């Protein structure tokens, strides 16, 4: 009962924040709201006892993603207040139709927490039975991610690596001497700061 109340409250907040992200016109506030959205999602994961997922969501979604978005925002030119366009009838129809179809699709999904679903009857039982014995590691999530699903995790790391590579090629590649530019431009002010501080 208490779990139902907590879940409903969290989902309600999630809905409010999601609407706020779309409705708000300032990008800075939207980014902050995104962070809040991730934090709420992390809380829902905690209620579901998925501590590892909640940890990742809080650290990545609410933490580093927000900071990186803010850093990216700082590069944008000053915001211009855009006139809200009106009379967009067909986009609304399209979005509503997609929404209805998606909700229709969820009808086929198994019930929340249903133990008889394919996901729970497949390899999960084997992992629960064998993981602590075969790897000797108490945290089953770690043993699944790093050992049983090691190749998937390698792919995940490669995604991160590729993201960094992409950012470097797009933004850092224009000025190859990114470090030396920093030295010449910010070095002076930082040095004087050090002496006074």
């Amino acid at each position: 009962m208490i779990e139902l109340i907590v879940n409903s409250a969290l989902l309600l907040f999630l809905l409010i924040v999601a609407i706020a992200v779309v409705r708000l016109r300032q990008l800075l506030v939207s980014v902050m709201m995104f962070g809040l959205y991730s934090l709420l999602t992390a809380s829902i994961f905690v209620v579901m006892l998925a501590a590892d997922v909640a940890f990742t969501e809080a650290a990545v979604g609410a933490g580093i993603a927000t900071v990186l978005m803010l850093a990216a925002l700082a590069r944008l030119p000053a915001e211009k207040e855009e006139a809200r366009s009106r009379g967009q009838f067909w986009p609304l129809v399209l979005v509503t139709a997609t929404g209805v179809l998606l909700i229709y699709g969820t009808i086929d999904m198994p019930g929340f927490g249903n133990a008889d679903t394919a996901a729970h009857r497949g390899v999960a039982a084997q992992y629960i039975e064998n993981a602590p014995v075969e790897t000797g590691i108490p945290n089953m999530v770690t043993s699944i991610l790093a050992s049983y699903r090691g190749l998937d995790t390698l792919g995940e790391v490669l995604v991160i690596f590729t993201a960094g590579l992409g950012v470097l090629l797009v933004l850092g590649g224009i000025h190859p001497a990114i470090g030396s530019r920093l030295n010449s431009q910010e070095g002076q002010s930082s040095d004087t700061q050090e002496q006074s501080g």
Partner: protein
Amino acid sequence: MTDYLILRVTAKFLIPLILLMGLYVQFHGELGPGGGFQAGVIFSAGLILYALVFGLYRLTQSIPVFVLKVLSSLGVLLFAGTGVVTMLLGGEFLNYNLLAENAVTGQHLGIFLVELGVGITVASTMLLIFAVFADQEGHD
């Protein structure tokens, strides 16, 4: 940003704790929630806080962008390299059982190395992305 005294003092107090927390999550991931991914993110968050308060220049002075580039590839190399080593030992890619005489010890060692690789790559790549974004600020 560097003029805010309270911010500087608080950041100096917080940053070591955040870095310590990152290391704890990295090496305690086998026992509690967490692992290389979360640890890398937390570790980089501590250093990004440093860059935000004391300036990116001070950060890239201690950790040059060149080092970040090397580290971000090194983590992937450590991960994939562990897999190659297990292949050379006569097993499948990422079959940690062969890393030691005992299969369980091998799993421990393999997971430790792999998680370390994840942590190194995630931490350095996040810092790299932040440095590239923050460096361009107001320059063009």
